[in-house]
């Protein structure tokens, strides 16, 4: 049986009267890419924010690498890397400056941070652009820097919240290859996206959320098999069948 690296138990989170996450439980195996899919407002980002310790759950707990988030938040933070949906970067600074700064925040020495920054910039194909200011970069380059920052400190678990939104196919492909390379090195990844073919290509298992709850969890093949022959059904068909065709805001 695969080792459970992240275990979320009965997570709840409300904002005023709105229940954003309502009793979410799941486990992510070590070394897998776990997809978290759902329409807008399903609770994916709130779940990731709780898993990455920046938002405290109203109820429930998360264990990462054997450490309880409630009791050992610092130990949990040492194990994780976060690539948020937004470009959480200092756009007035250079790419290298951003990576070094967040590396130092992750506890690296100056030398370690510089070395890792160069390695990760090379990984996302930006080794020649390290000194360039982020606000001069294209959307795809910014996304790749956003991902590279999440890798600083060599986290064991990586949260990727829609890392390929609004970028060109070349940059998207670079990100796919980077993520697959990280999985091959044994990194555990939680991945959210609205692109179904992306989830189908990358994810070992997928959880579909709606209304703050997980409504399905299995491998892409098994999810497709639930509604028809997997060869003839797409993940998007599964998604629409489970979450409905009504528009979400």
């Amino acid at each position, binding site marked *: 049986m695969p080792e459970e690296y992240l275990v979320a138990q009965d997570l709840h989170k409300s904002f005023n009267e709105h229940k954003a996450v309502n009793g979410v439980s799941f486990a992510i195996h070590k070394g897998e890419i776990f997809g978290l899919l759902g329409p807008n407002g399903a609770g994916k980002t709130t779940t990731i924010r709780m898993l990455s310790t920046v938002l405290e759950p109203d109820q429930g707990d998360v264990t990462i690498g054997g450490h309880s988030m409630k009791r050992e938040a610092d130990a949990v933070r040492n194990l994780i890397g976060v690539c948020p949906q937004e470009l959480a970067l200092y756009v007035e600074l250079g790419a290298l400056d951003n990576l070094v700064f*967040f590396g130092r925040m992750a506890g690296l020495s100056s030398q370690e941070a510089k070395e890792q920054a160069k390695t990760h910039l090379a990984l996302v194909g930006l080794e020649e652009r390290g000194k360039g200011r982020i606000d001069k970069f294209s959307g795809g380059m910014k996304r790749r820097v956003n991902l590279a920052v999440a890798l600083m400190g060599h986290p064991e678990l990586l949260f990727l919240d829609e890392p390929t939104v609004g970028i060109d196919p070349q940059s998207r492909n670079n990100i796919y290859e980077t993520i697959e390379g990280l999985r091959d090195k044994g990194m555990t990844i939680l991945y959210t996206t609205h692109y179904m073919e992306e989830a189908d290509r990358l994810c070992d298992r997928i959880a579909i959320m709606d209304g703050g709850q997980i409504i399905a969890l299995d491998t892409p093949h098994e999810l497709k098999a639930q509604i028809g022959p997997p060869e003839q059904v797409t993940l998007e068909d599964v998604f629409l069948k489970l979450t409905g065709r009504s528009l979400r805001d």
Partner: protein
Amino acid sequence: MIQPRLVWLIALKDLKLFIRDRLALFFFILFPFMFVVMFNFIYAGVGSEDDRLVFHLVTLEEETETALSYQIIAAIETPDESALQPGESQVVREDDYDELRRQVEDKELGGFLAFPVDFSEGIYMGRGAEIEVVADAEAVSYRAALYGLADGISSWIGANNVVEKAISELAKEQAPAILESIIEALGGQLIAGEPLIEYTSEKVGEVEAEQPSNFVIPGYLVMFVFFAAALSSEAIVRERQNHTLERILASSVRRFTIIGGIFTGTATKGLVQMIIFWAVGILAFNIDLGIAPAAVIILSFLMVIVSASFGVMLATLVKTDRGAGSIATLAALIMAPLGGCWWPLFITPQWMQFLSKVTPHGWANEGFNKLMLFGADFADVAPEMLALVIFTIIFGSIAVWRFRTAAG
């Protein structure tokens, strides 16, 4: 609880962002000196003619040419105001004691000197006389000046009396006729209209007008240090909106460390401004830090700390960066004139001086004025320093209580 190394790294990052922002550098480092030069020019006359000390003197003696008080007033009153040099005081002879008293009671006049009805008699008879100093209790400086004038007059008369008495004693021993002739001679002088008391004014060196940069530079230091810190709230809110603060929080950095880093960064920018202001002030404007330069530096430092606390607090109270920018600008532009940054507080009415105390600017400027204009020492500005510490505690407490890393 706080991670000092990370605090400093966050502060350094903020400084780096500040240095990269050329517009901010211009606005908060160079731009203030345009104001300083302009207002230095505008206030060039303050402390000279416009700020002339005017003494009002009145006598209750009957108007006779021999009345000593008339002689004194005639000797020292200013014959032609237009001939006065900058810094010279003016002496005005008044006639209506009751009217002067009413003006003092109504705070229209700081005070006046009055010679009593028996002044000449008291002096001539050797039993002495009193000069009445009538002054507004709140006009401390003016009252002190009146006392100084009264002391000057009385010691002058005292010296003459001693001479007169010495002559009298000598005359008693040697010949009563000599006494008679001296008294006659003195009487003759008075009758001839020549003043018994001569008043001479010796001008020692050049009387200079108050150097405006001594209050213009501290005023604009206070204004722009506060303005820059308040506007840094905009950047803090932007960090919250683009999730960089959350990203820092997710990388083993504690909440208090983030607050400490932001505060240190904002305060460090203020310290850089402060150093540049004083360096330029001393080197280019020849400002005088007074007898307690250390107090000037500490007061500046406290103003920097207050401003940084305000900036962080403001960031915690608003939701958008645009809101932060608007409120910061509004707060800076209201508090600056109210707190005496655009004009010296001591030329403003009493109620305005009182109102200035609701702002940290008012306390800081009052402290700077005391130290750099009125010769105060360290202990004299302790209340101003304490007030700034209290403002820091209030702003800082709200900032810590309300601080959040996420938008919304």
